[in-house]
């Protein structure tokens, strides 16, 4: 009874038990028998009989049948060393350490022995690494440029990055995090470019994580972030491999987690969240224009409803005379004060968004139509909301979708409500006070200890050429200053290069 509990629950609760090692080998393997996917087979027909032990759900049977069994059957007077050398598998080893054996078995290794009485055997890797095929990015969709996005397999993801950075300086540090999940976490950086301090900070923070399960990169992001109470994401997550390659070359550090289609980029700044990677695929004038549009739309999205509430409640003098008729007539049938009206509409939009996000795509579309057209029009006709506000709220919702990073979009969604509250309390002064609070918070925020509001504060004029606007590539010869890179220059700017004129 005791033995059984040891084995079965041992998977879920991997606590070290001293008694285990003392048990005889045969009984040691016994508890696994209770598991449906644990196989322990004796191959007596072979020239030299042997035992194979593995967990079927973790092992790629194709590898087992193609690369292991044929070679074992051919052996006549084998030793373990000979077995090890003959197997066409890179990762294999001979060991008799029960802890290690157990660990490797749970990671998809095959355990080959000549007798089930001894622990010593060859462990060869035959891990089943199946993941969904690489598809187009869903969250960071772009019209032009590559259409690859990360998948749930770390190997595939790393392949996509390595393919884009075939240099020996690309360093990869693999760590295992999570007492239960044993998730593989990879920290990528380019040696000689990335700041060592940043690399050490990331490694140190990841090593310090005491958590039972890491199911997605967002877990890591929440656990190692500078200020976990902030609604602003301090790490940029992306599903685009080319963005990862680009930031690695800039000197950022990328964290990738097995099982997560998102890579984390750190350190980062607030402005980075408003630049879509598509900006680098299009002309710099257009890219700059779109970035400015995005920035304005964010401000619009946060401020328009609070300003409406403030103006309608307190500052009627600010309304232009020609607009007065429209505003007053649309407001006059509404029985609620402006704040309540605004709250109702904002919450409706949030409801629609949440419902749309949770439902399958096809139903989601229907919800959008029902929400946008039916509820909107009906609520105005019923006199529950004014149509001017409906336009504002809808525009604000639309504007918040322009943020390329979904997490930042969420922060903006939430940010509107305190602004609304302050607008109701003290009008435009309240909006200003709320803005001061947000500004103060942003000023104090850091990403891996680097200022979050850079290049605005501290002012780095050099970084401004790839922030609110994007200047042409030939001006981007230096790495961003906030990354404090070792090698600052990425290429020689054209005006420093030697002219290649024939005349010379």
């Amino acid at each position, binding site marked *: 009874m005791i033995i059984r509990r040891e084995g079965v629950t041992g998977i879920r609760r991997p606590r070290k038990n001293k008694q285990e090692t003392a048990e005889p080998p045969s009984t040691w393997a016994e508890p696994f028998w209770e598991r449906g996917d644990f196989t322990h087979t004796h191959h007596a027909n072979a020239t030299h009989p042997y035992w194979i032990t593995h967990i079927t759900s973790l092992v790629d049977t194709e590898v087992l049948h193609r690369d292991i069994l044929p070679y074992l059957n051919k052996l006549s007077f084998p030793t373990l060393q000979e077995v090890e050398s003959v197997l066409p598998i890179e990762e294999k080893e001979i060991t008799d350490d029960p802890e290690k054996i157990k660990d490797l078995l749970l990671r998809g290794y095959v355990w080959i022995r000549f007798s089930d009485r001894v622990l010593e055997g060859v462990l060869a890797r035959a891990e089943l690494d199946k993941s969904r095929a690489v598809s187009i990015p869903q969250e960071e969709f772009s019209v032009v440029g590559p259409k690859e996005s990360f998948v749930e397999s770390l190997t595939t993801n790393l392949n996509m990055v390595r393919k884009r950075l075939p240099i020996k300086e690309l360093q990869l540090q693999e760590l295992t995090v999570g007492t239960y999940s044993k998730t593989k976490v990879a920290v990528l950086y380019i040696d000689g470019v990335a700041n060592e301090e940043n690399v050490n900070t990331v490694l140190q923070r990841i090593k310090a994580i005491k958590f039972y399960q890491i199911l997605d990169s967002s877990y890591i992001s929440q656990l190692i972030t500078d200020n976990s109470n902030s609604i602003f994401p301090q790490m940029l997550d992306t599903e685009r491999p080319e963005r990862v390659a680009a930031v690695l070359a800039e000197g950022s550090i990328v964290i990738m987690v097995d099982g997560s289609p998102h890579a984390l980029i750190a350190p980062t700044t607030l402005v980075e969240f408003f630049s879509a990677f598509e900006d680098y695929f299009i002309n710099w004038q257009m890219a700059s224009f779109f970035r400015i549009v995005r920035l304005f739309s964010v401000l619009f999205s946060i401020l328009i409803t609070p300003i409406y509430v403030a103006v309608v*409640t307190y500052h009627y003098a600010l309304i232009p*005379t020609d607009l*007065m008729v429209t505003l*007053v*007539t649309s407001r*006059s049938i509404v029985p609620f004060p402006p704040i309540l009206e605004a709250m109702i509409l904002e919450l409706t939009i949030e409801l629609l968004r949440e419902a749309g996000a949770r439902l399958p795509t096809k139903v989601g579309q229907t919800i959008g139509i029902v929400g946008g057209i039916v509820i909107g029009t009906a609520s105005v006709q019923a006199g529950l909301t004014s149509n001017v506000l409906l336009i504002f709220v809808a525009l604000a919702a639309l504007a918040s979708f322009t943020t390329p990073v979904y997490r930042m979009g969420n922060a903006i969604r939430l940010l509107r409500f305190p602004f609304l509250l302050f607008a109701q309390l003290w009008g435009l002064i309240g909006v200003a006070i709320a803005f001061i609070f947000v500004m103060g918070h942003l000023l104090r925020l850091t990403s891996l200890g680097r200022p979050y509001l850079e290049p605005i504060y501290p002012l780095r004029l050099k970084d401004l050429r790839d922030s609110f606007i994007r200047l042409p590539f030939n001006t981007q010869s230096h790495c961003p200053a906030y990354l404090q890179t070792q090698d600052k220059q990425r290429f020689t700017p054209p005006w420093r290069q030697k002219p290649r004129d024939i005349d010379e």
Partner: protein
Amino acid sequence: MKKWIKWMKPITLVVIAICIIIFGNVRKNVLDEIQLVTAVGYDYIDEQTATMTAVTPVFRSDASIENKTLSITANLGKEALIALNRESSANLANAKLEVALFNKEMAKRGILHMIDTLHRDPNIGTSLSLAVTEGVTKEILNQSFGTRDTGHYIASLLEHNTQNGSIPNNSLHYFLSAYYTKGKDPFLPLLKLTDREITLTGLALFKKDRMVFELDRSHLFTFNTLYGKNRFPGMKVQIGDKFVAMRVITSNRRISIRNTQTTPEITIYLNIRASISEFSGKHLKPQHVSQTEHALKKQVSQQGHQLIRKFQQLGIDPLGLGDHVRSHTRNWDFKTWQKQYPRVKVRIVPRVNIVEIGVVDGLD
């Protein structure tokens, strides 16, 4: 004990938040729960009392506007607007006040205390239009002008006439500026209700805050030209038995001053550029153009001298000549200037240039 301290911070924050929400409320002016006052009119009754009329637009659901007037006869206290609240169903809000009218009797007896009320209120901007009306303001304000709000109607009437140059810039700001500038006197546009329509009939010239002279519409062009850089929408001169109409007249002035210490001599050089838009004769010949130039020159010169003589007699200076002299004189003294002003020699030297005569010579 330790547990208690741990909860201190959130509890304090919650208490502060509740306090702010409950006690931090300030007075609200919700847009649809107030009645906007867009125009006010003051009518003279006697030394102590006046009738104050306020126009408030009532917005209908079909986006049309109905004007409602409230009026009260009261002691000319500063809180007349507040007294009007007793007549209105919602709180009267004056931040959207666009125009203030004074009837002639009122203007002749001084409007400073009403101007003071308007100026002192931080809600009322200095872009407020002021005007003097012939007849009772209450009658004008009771009149509806189409489906528009009366205050906005009158304000835009004054605004577009200012913009196209019919009258010089005027608003509360300009009035106060002229009032407080030494060597300058304010003026206001003069309005009249004829046939249910408001027309601009001229300018009311003030000495301090009292209206002393009425400038007729026929003299507006000359006054504008003398007043400074200007553009005028159009005017007409007679040459022989024919009429010439001109449009887009731009003008600028240059003043030269001599003898500032004894008897100042002021020469106003005017440079007028115009284009002919209409000619009643058959063919517009070069001599007609020079005749037109001459006629305009003569008209400006004659009317200008007349006006300035009149101003000197009345002791008013709406053109701001005194201010101009001040800016060119060291140790300028207002009292001395006041004594000098009636005897100041003013010469007007107009130069007219017809720059365009249109695309045809004439039509047969």
